[in-house]
């Protein structure tokens, strides 16, 4: 039976997003008066999506739909063939149905909650786009389109964490969360590339079916790539801290992204690839270890969280850790059910987060056992969140930042001047003081008689160049007004020194060693 209409499940929110985005961009809808229109478009689109997904789910159970629906070829080159197809297995459709229902609830919630917010239309545009991305992600039969959904959902999450973009903290946290997630993308892309190279297809079905044909090592590597992506998306150790930073957005977006829907994408990916993982015992082991660690970490840190959103977020990562553990131990079915149940419950808990005060009538949560309560080191680990983020910053981010800064310095100091700074116009002056000096005949540049000096090889080189230039300028161009080139040469000398100094600093030595090693390896293979 033909069931092409499943395509509409991700398409309807896409159309809604395009419509709202387009109308808002053209200033045809804006402000409070058009809120109703935006809300109606969004809720209608996602309602129909949910209905269709539920229908599809009912039909899958009765076995009336084919397992994979192929809509066409996206890219075809030689052996490579990437088709656009949607999957119809029970798990994918079931998840699509569940997610679309949660998205429907959150859209309805946001209509009232964001009433009169300046970013109302923007919010709904992003939410629709996100809905489309997530539904594509869970339904796509091909890794490439799953990845597209994966990325778009990530970008939407970035936009909504930075929803209040006038608050620097929100923007900063959004960027942190976004950048952390890009590490996982690397894994995903590499996974796609490897499966295209080894299996000549990025179809989930093909990957799963042919996983058994792969060499053990290859299967492990492929599984690791996707596991990395899953770990980053589902905030497993060491990526967990980005989740806590994501709590800057409006309550409904926190609920749907980090409680209900997006945060489970990693677990979904694992379950999707269970056949592959079953061939990759090392990757399974990794999943179990990471999941177990995350569960412990989430629990430990969660104990000392005093604000409701952070507390929920750490509980979320602990549960996700359990799901990873279940996957790692091979309880795929259990992980699938756990995912669905957790998505619903956590979405509810985050949507109703503001009511905890009255729902519990201010009753305190059960305190930790007295044995631990006064244990200071354990408390500090919990309060300061295990220093996971700081440690990563210290080990990775800071050196990279320093590297980037050095690169910029090199650009600014060596490359830019070498590629032609305009020679100063002869008669013009760049500041009043300079003019005054000239007028009074003061000679501040008296020290310039000692000619540009550098040390070391690069320094000498610069010195000679400057001398040559100076001679050239003096002889043929300026006829006696060579001051500028002298100072220029002097500057060049100083910069060359600095460059040499930079090259000798440890991080560059390490970098050089690394590059050399990589080149050697490249040739060896």
């Amino acid at each position, binding site marked *: 039976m033909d069931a092409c209409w499943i395509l509409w499940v991700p398409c309807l929110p896409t159309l809604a997003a395009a419509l709202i985005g387009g109308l808002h961009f053209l200033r045809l809808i804006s402000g409070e008066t058009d809120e109703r229109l935006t809300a109606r478009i969004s809720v209608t689109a996602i309602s129909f999506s949910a209905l269709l997904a539920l229908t599809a789910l009912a039909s899958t159970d009765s076995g009336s739909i084919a397992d994979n629906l192929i809509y066409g070829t996206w890219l075809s080159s030689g052996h490579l063939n990437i088709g656009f197809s949607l999957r119809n297995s029970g798990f994918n459709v079931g998840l699509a149905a569940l997610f679309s229902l949660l998205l429907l609830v959150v859209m309805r919630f946001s209509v009232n*909650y964001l009433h009169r917010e300046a970013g109302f239309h923007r919010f709904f545009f992003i939410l629709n786009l996100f809905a489309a991305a997530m539904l594509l992600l869970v339904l796509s039969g091909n890794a490439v389109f799953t990845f597209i959904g994966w990325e778009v959902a990530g970008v939407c999450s970035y936009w909504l964490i930075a929803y209040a973009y006038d608050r620097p903290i929100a923007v900063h946290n959004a960027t942190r969360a976004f950048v952390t997630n890009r590490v996982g993308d690397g894994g995903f892309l590499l996974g796609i590339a490897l499966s295209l190279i080894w299996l000549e297809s990025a179809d989930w079905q093909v990957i799963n079916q042919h996983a058994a044909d792969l060499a053990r090592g290859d299967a492990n590597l492929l599984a690791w790539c996707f596991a990395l992506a899953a770990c980053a998306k589902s905030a497993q150790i060491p990526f967990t801290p980005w989740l806590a930073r994501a709590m800057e957005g409006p309550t409904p977006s926190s609920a749907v992204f980090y409680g209900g829907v997006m945060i489970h994408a990693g677990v979904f990916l694992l379950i999707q690839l269970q056949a592959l993982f079953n061939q990759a015992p090392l990757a399974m082991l990794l999943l179990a270890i990471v999941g177990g660690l995350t569960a412990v970490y989430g629990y430990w840190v969660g104990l000392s969280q005093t604000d409701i959103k952070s507390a929920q977020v750490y509980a979320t990562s602990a549960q996700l850790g359990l799901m990873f553990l279940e996957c790692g131990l091979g309880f795929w079915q259990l992980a699938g059910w756990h995912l669905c149940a*957790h998505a*619903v419950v956590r979405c509810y808990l985050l949507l109703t987060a503001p009511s905890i005060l009255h729902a519990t009538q201010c009753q305190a949560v059960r305190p930790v056992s007295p044995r631990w309560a006064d244990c200071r080191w354990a408390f500090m680990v919990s309060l300061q969140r295990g220093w996971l983020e700081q440690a990563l910053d210290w080990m990775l981010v800071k050196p990279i930042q320093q590297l980037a800064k050095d690169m910029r310095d090199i650009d600014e100091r060596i490359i830019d001047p070498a590629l032609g700074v305009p020679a100063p116009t002869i008669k013009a002056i760049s500041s*009043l003081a300079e003019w005054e000096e000239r007028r009074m005949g003061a000679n501040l540049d008296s020290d310039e008689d000692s000619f540009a000096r550098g040390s070391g090889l690069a320094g000498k080189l610069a010195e000679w160049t400057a001398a040559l230039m100076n001679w050239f300028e003096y002889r043929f161009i300026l006829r006696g007004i060579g001051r500028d080139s002298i100072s220029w040469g002097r500057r060049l000398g100083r910069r060359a020194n600095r460059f040499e100094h930079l090259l000798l600093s440890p991080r560059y030595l390490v970098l050089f060693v690394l590059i050399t090693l990589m080149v050697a390896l490249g040739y060896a293979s």
Partner: protein
Amino acid sequence: MNTPAQNPKRQIVLDAIRHLDHVLPGQAPIHDFVHHNTLHGFQHLPFEQALAEFTALTGIDCYLPEAQFRQFHAQGRISDADIDAALNDYLADAGPVAASNGSDNAPTRRQFYRQALLSDLSPLNPAQLTWQLQESDLLQQPDARALWETVLDRLELTLPELHPEQLLDLSREQAETWLSNAGVSLPSARKDLELQAVRGLFDQVGDSLTLRGLLLALTGTDILENVRPRLIKLCASVLDEGQAAWRLPQRQTLGLYKAWRQTLPHDAEALFQDLTDWPQLVDALPEAAGDAIVQQLEMAGIPCERWAGYLERLALELPGWSGLLNWRQTHPDYSAEGQSQTLLADYLAIRLILDQACLQAFAKATWRCPMHIGKLQAYFEKNNAEVAVRHAVFGGQLPEYLQQAGQSLVADNPRDNRPWQVLTERIHTWQHSPLAGQTGGIHANTQGWQLFRLCRDLGLRAAELSQLPKAQLLNWLTLIEAFTPSHRQRVWLDAYERHYQQDLLQALHANHNRGRWAQRRQAPQAQIVFCMDDREEGIRRHLEELNPAVETLGAAGFFGVPMHYQGLDDAHATPLCPVVVTPSHTVREQSRPERALLLKRHKRRNSIKLALGRLIFHGLRRGVLSSAPLIGIAAPFTLAGLLLKSFTPKQQQRLLQQAGHTLGAQVETHLQFQAEHPAVPATPQNPRLGFTDSEQAERIAAFLKNTGLTYGFAEIVVLMGHGSMSQNNPHLAAYDCGACSGRHGGPNARLFAAMANRAEIRQLLLEHNIDIPEHTWFIGAEHNTCDEDITWYDSADIPAARLPAFQRFVAEMEHAQRMSAHERCRRLASAPRKPTPAQALRHFLNRAADFSQARPELGHATNAAALVGRRSLTQGAFFDRRLFLISYDPTQDPEGTILEGILLAVGPVGAGINLEYYFSTVNNERLGCGSKVPHNLTGFCAVMEGAGSDLRTGLPKQMIEIHEAMRLQIVVEAKTTVLEKIYNRQESLRELIGGGWVHLSSKDPDSGEIFVFRRASGFMPWQAADKPLPLRDNSPDCYREETLPVAPMLIKQPSFSGEPG
């Protein structure tokens, strides 16, 4: 250890901390939210001065923006007459001024000021001027063009036509002209100026800057970014009331500072932040927080006399957290946990230490100089070029090319003085170019533009202008400059308030002798006492319109019976009375004796309900392994619940309630309020269970006398407390009854009715000259102001003979509930337009149960005036739910003793509500708590934005959107002589009224003459304007089709036999 007396330095610190109580927000934990004056610490000053001082201290503007006032003027919400009157008052205050102009036909100062209010005369920057000249059509008309040319001509100005990039290479000519304009330009003279700037900057430390602020100004780096997360986690851990399972070890025994010190060996943050000196810093820390503050301040080299200022500034950098810590410190009885009470000193010490660690590391890395204010100043006096560049770069006034150069220089941070010098020269050059926003001299974009706008708006022509000398034109501008923005805003506010005041007084004047029940010649059919709350004005009006034979009254919603109340399901007793009162009595709700079995089931149901709540909201985040199966079980129900809640919230709520009923029904209860041991004295320190008979009689009598309900009792007398129920709303308490400390007032109404129904009490009341007839029955009830629901208490006790009257009254109330909902719909954008009353009520039932509603109701958003007097003053006119109505009968109180009591209670409560709304509205970002959307409940005691911000105090945006920010108009029905005596007797009223925090007017009970109180001259007679008020058939006719505030109108009064015409 030293005692404070032995240690003068520590005494300075302690005194400074005590003073902080005046400047920090005074908001209680959020579940105890009670409205109060946001600027409570400045209330001893006159309003305008308080606002000015607060703005000077915090930089927070406390008036609506001028643009907003101009918009009101355009909308007719402020008339020309209002502006003139307000300006007259202002000029009278300012005193006579020397003649400002030469010729006779030139505009007067009044006209100038008026124009300064009406037009935006702020100077432009050069780029804006260019835009105005080239892009806007303002200068396209020939008249305007001519005027502009004339202005330029008269002021001898030329237009700058330059692009910033051109400054990179100047021509000789340019340089010469600019230098001749500039006063000082020689490098040596400039060095002096720069030195002065350095000293000026360092002098600000301890006054308007902390060291963090200094660093921010010089490097653009905010060390608070590093300090804040650590500090906030720590404070939250200490202040938390039960959200976290694990909190700072030994905080109760050691206090915040000492407990924190104990954790330092395990604190690895310092390691990761590369704080090299951290171990030495920690080793040197003293035992006590006060000493640590002294040590840190000395280490930073801050002179003693600036400590107080420095600590104040430090506390104000995170006012929310400092404020809550201070609140806990000043309320030591609040929780059993807060045994160590030096929270604020602990907090400031920790903040200083963390600051110091970051500052030291930063200063050493940047300048190789310790973060000691003296040493740093010396360093910068030597490197004055560097400080000039840094100041300019992070002051954010530079054009792009200089900004870039500056930033790369700062990033490079050379120790050599020369590059700094070069860049200072370039900056200096730019500052002298016509492109910079200059400070001195006359320029086209500043004076030129201002004069042009002024002349154009005053309607002066180019020809007239060309006759006038330059000096006089400049004189005009000086004159206008003297009328500063804050003074203009003050005049605007006066005008805005005057507009409403005139409308209000006009309506009271027109309504004179139209209202019913000034005297009860015969008993009404029913009487109902509401809370004075502005939200009850509508429902009262609709009830009276339906049945003119019903009398409504208003009083503070604790009905004169302050108590500690413990409901059947409450774990402990809570005070139900205004915050300033501490009750001496406890009252418990108990099940009726014959219902023992039901009670058992009820208790069981309740504990199950609570356990479920805890399981879902605490359990599912507290455990990991335990919650996994729970999540699995809960998921199907949750999904069904979520879908139902989203689409039919009310039905979902009912379903839940029904499920609750199957576990155990609501049990019938009564109040236990009879004193069992009358001999035990009742004091605030040791509250006694129950009231004695005479105590009961006293309270009833006092309340009846206050409201004037001492005769003419109806068959049914209802006392209607109120509260508000809504979902997903941390600010819930802010919608409840302010007279009951932000809680529901139903129990007070119920208690009052139960007392007043006792035959013994009625007997005792005779001694107070109050004769309650036997057929009168009191009934307590509670009105839910969100969904209009009414709970009737103890209706089972109503004698059979009273039942028909009661049932008729309930039916009438049902009509009033529907109409009240109908009236409220018009102000809510998401409510149905043109609903039927039944639809309107349905909407509110759903709205209150809807967990996505950020505006379940609008709270006191419409409050504007308080009326103390008989209902006959206001009954018959439509006041749009803007009045607090307090019943008071001046004919029974010739001396004003009752009035004095009422004003002492109502003044602060009304002003508190009104001023909190005022400040939250004028500056919602800084004085309110912003939008609810990103709020995150923290520690059960406050909200943050996101996961690590300052605590947000004040009202959320969703509560104040439609509020009109004006001070409360109090109108009292009394003789001015009586009021004057009270005013002179009562210091607290003088502070409020004489300080201008509220406006006072009076209406003479006999003649109906109206007087307005002026701060300078006392009561002045008020003249009614000769214009008739619109007369409408009924309330809905007054508000139909309107979504904005509606001015008062008259409503046709039915001819009613029981009353004089």
